[in-house]
């Protein structure tokens, strides 16, 4: 228990057959359709959120 998880960033990512099929479908759809949404602003998601004080919904690990 509690052995450290080794990230192994250079390990090749293997997809399941189901994932591969879904991605192939997404790729063909993406090539046909363009995203057309009214963007208000761009959110910087690379900024780390500081752990908050009050989150009732977080009461499970």
């Amino acid at each position, binding site marked *: *228990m509690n052995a*450290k998880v080794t990230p192994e*960033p250079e390990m*090749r*990512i*293997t*997809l399941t057959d189901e994932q591969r099929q879904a991605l192939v479908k997404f790729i063909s759809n993406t090539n046909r359709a363009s995203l057309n*949404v009214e963007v208000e602003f761009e*959110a910087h998601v690379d900024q780390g959120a500081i752990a908050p004080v009050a989150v009732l919904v977080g009461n499970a*690990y």
Partner: protein
Amino acid sequence: MAVPDVRIRKEDFGYILAFATGEIGFYPDEVAPMLVAGTATRQSLEPYRLRRLPVQDRFHLSAPLIVWFEITRDCNLPCKHCYVEAGRPRRDELSTEEVFAVLDQLKAAGVFALVLVGGEPMSRPDFLPILHRAHDLGFVISIATNGTYLTQEIVDQLPREECIVSISVDGTSQHQELRLKSTFADIQERLLLLKRNDIPAALMCTQTDRNAGELHEVLTFAEDNGFFFGSTPFSPIGRGRFFPQYQPDLSTVDDATALYLRDKAHDTAMSETVGLCVTKFLDECHRIAQATRREFCGVAMAYVLSDGSVYPCSICASTGKFPAGNLRARSFAEVWADSFDEIRDYTFDSGTDCPSCELSREPYYCTSRCPVMGEVHTGDPTGCGATPFVKASLKRRTDLIANPVR
């Protein structure tokens, strides 16, 4: 089901990838061919990781990252602070087959993580079949339980991968004060049973005005035994509205801050021992909320009650605010697509007190800009959802992290 190397979900901006090792990120469409070709590694994908997301009106992900699924409100404990006033089951709770159907819908929608919650989820006679169905579908699971049903027979049947047992613990003597029919000593035994069986477990605590010192002892127990730990302040909702005296006040800020800093160090170490878990998805929810300047409830999270009704989060479910429909009438995908508009209209700019509050600006990240808690505390959904304790704690924690020598 074997743990996949990566979980993938399509979004307007590209993809969310959740790696088995625990990293979660946002990526553009360009990564898809690399993944299909089998040439992608996490390292090779890193330069593609999106630093910015386009935010439009009523922004939301294509599905929640996490769904809290109350499979029953039945519970054997009458805890004073229970936010759903658990005890008796709800009228007309979902049958086994209906629960299975909901799980199938959540999977089809693309939900990554699932919290099985109650009531006491293990009180359902079909708890194990439900758990196994959820695990077979590939959800990252947390079981939110009071721990009293845990026996060797149950533990033998728990999944060994991507499933954490989160047990509520509210102190040493204060545990029984709040939970009445449960003792810390008994819960310690149940936790050690999980440890002996190599089942990852977490101690999830509610902070009150009188248990901060005891929670330090609980955290020490977690540190000594390799358990995850988390705490959140008492909220005067559900049954808790009848016991407002437990709400932490300013006198507990110092103890709570010290606990937070210890917990943060413990969490950093423990986080490296687990791949994907609900907390890592919750961290992404916070990242999204902070970046998009709106709550993540109904945006990256949903809460399903045991009668099939759907809410943005536990606070909404507890108070009956922002109901989004019922899964007996509409599919989860349909509900998610168009029944959360009202909560999605709220942004961090909606609060009337926020413009004059320093906690609404960097470096602070205030999670109390919640219309429901605003209404609970001020009678106005655009009012401040924080108590003086929460405000002072946020300020103290943030300042100490920014300047630890102070």
